[in-house]
């Protein structure tokens, strides 16, 4: 006779929602990590590599999408969670937005052969550096979720994550400054450049900037976990 467990005990346990959130964030971060080499390939006019990196970003983005999808399927409203279910669902879509932006940048560079204006190179490098920093901080923040869970989102660990969140805010502020200078430089050189290219460069700069805005959104979402 095959005996199944007639007791409800094991049915009580569901996989922790923080694991897929962290896995998702790691994928999103690797998406963003491909943006600097992507632009580097553009500088070097290496179309082969540009395609390779661009497609890698698109592939990673769809993997992240898959995790988001499975995560949502596994979040029935009968769950007892240490944080608000709505906040968790919004957190993963905020993270997903990051990957979406990276994908948009990759696609833009894939369908349009862009010429890089010399004046922008240094500023864009600066912008990329800031973007990588803020994305890494956002990822580190998400990596703290296990520890936060262990101490019930309180105490020392809470302070530590609050500081990390403040750090992300500050970085976003700095990037806003770089964004302004980059746009200004582009504006001052508009007359020497092809008008259509200028439009696309504005778009590209905006998208790079929105990565840091979105990273700040992720941080703000996490703040809600701490204030419950």
């Amino acid at each position, binding site marked *: 006779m095959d005996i199944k467990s007639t007791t*409800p005990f094991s049915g009580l346990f569901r996989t*922790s929602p923080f694991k897929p959130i962290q896995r998702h964030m790691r994928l999103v971060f690797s998406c963003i990590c491909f943006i600097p080499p992507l632009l580097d390939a553009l500088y070097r006019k290496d179309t082969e590599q540009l395609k390779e990196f661009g497609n890698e970003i698109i592939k990673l983005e769809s993997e992240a999408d898959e995790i988001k999808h499975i995560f949502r399927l596994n979040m*029935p409203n009968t769950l007892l969670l240490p944080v608000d279910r709505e906040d968790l669902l919004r957190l993963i879509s905020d993270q997903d937005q990051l990957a979406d932006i990276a994908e948009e940048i990759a696609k833009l560079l894939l369908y349009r052969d862009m010429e890089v204006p010399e004046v922008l190179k240094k500023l864009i490098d600066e912008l990329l550096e800031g973007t990588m920093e803020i994305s890494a901080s956002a990822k580190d923040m998400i990596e703290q979720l296990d520890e936060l869970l262990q101490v*019930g989102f309180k105490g020392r660990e809470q302070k530590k994550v609050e500081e990390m969140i403040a750090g992300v805010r500050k970085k976003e502020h700095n990037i806003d400054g770089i964004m302004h200078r980059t746009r200004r430089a582009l504006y001052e050189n508009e007359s020497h450049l092809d008008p259509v290219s200028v439009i696309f460069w504005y778009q590209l700069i905006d998208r790079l900037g929105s990565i840091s805005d979105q990273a700040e959104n992720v941080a703000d979402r996490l703040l809600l976990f701490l204030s419950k």
Partner: protein
Amino acid sequence: MDIIAAYGTVFIVLAIIFGLYMTWGIGANDLANAMGTSVGAGAVTIRQAICIAIIFEFAGAVLAGGHVTSTIRKGIIDPTAIVSSPEILVYGMLASLLAAAFWLMIASWKGWPVSTTHSIVGALIGFAIVGIGPDAVKWGKVGSVVASWLVSPAVGGTISFLLVISTRKLIFDTDNPLQNAKRYAPFYVFLVGFIISLVTLFKGLTHLNIDLSVGQSFGVAFLFGLLTAAIGWYFIRKIKADRDADRDFHFASVEKVFAPMMLFTACAMAFAHGSNDVANGIGPLAAVFSIVSSGGEVMQKSELPVWILLLGGGGIVLGLITLGYRVMLTVGRKITELTPSRGFCAELAAATTVVLASRTGLPVSTTHILVGSVLGVGLARGIGALDLRVVFNIIVSWLVTLPAGALMAMLFFFTLKGIFS
């Protein structure tokens, strides 16, 4: 009286077979939950879990199993109306055992979440209503038993909630969690030994002719706590910080301290389970034996023989080593989400609640109390995700099991009555 004299041996043999079947079912199924937590957390291997279960299941049954057995045996039914025909009570007890065992078998086959405790209580009530009359059910006692089913998971949950909060204050949310874990761990292990032994010893061993005063009970329990604390200290003293694991998860080393501590809660759970659930199988058996051996005395004034408790413990162990270990593996695999520190809190809370209920003679469900304790950890924001549908399933299983057990007991009662008279 003639029937008892003519078929006495048959009745006892039948009761032993049904009782063994029941305890076998309890061991194959129910025990897996009680110990699966420790197996799932990696604190004990399946082989160690079986060894622990054998020793502590027996200890729980023999040392503390008498109170609940007495409730099942003579606490729920008032047989004064049938003093002249004791065979009715024998049929009823056999029918109740058979009904509960049968219902358990159906539920196991279908995978329904039922509790043996609820099956046997439902069956006893069912038999008493048709066999003797509705007045024969001690409704007051039934009321307190049913109330304990609601209260006990809440008590377990409250204790585990407080334990989780205390581990955070004393260990996790400090500057040096590992050092504090090693400092306070023996104290937590002391609690396991102290509470379980105190509840058991406190005026609870009269059936073994051991009568301890209040002071003596406290003294022995204290010594027992110190002993477990010393063994606990021996296990954790060598644990060192694991830098690689800590990089990934800061509290990895601290959790390593809690892993051997779950060995003690595993013992406590097996003990608690033995002290409460063994009664479901042997309570009716004890009643039948008492009636037959006294030649038809339904009031059952005699003491509960220890061999019946041993038989019950044996049945549970048999169930565990034939089928239960596999269920335990399945359960353990599913509950890896429970880290050793939370598992320790949940098990200690559950074991304490069950032993307290056993001491009071209340038949409760170990599994439901464990569910309540885990929910307590969840309410302390200590677990990633718990599915509350389980709570709904438990309530449904109460509503279904009581009438199902009752109806089947009625059916078996009339069948047995037809066969023997």
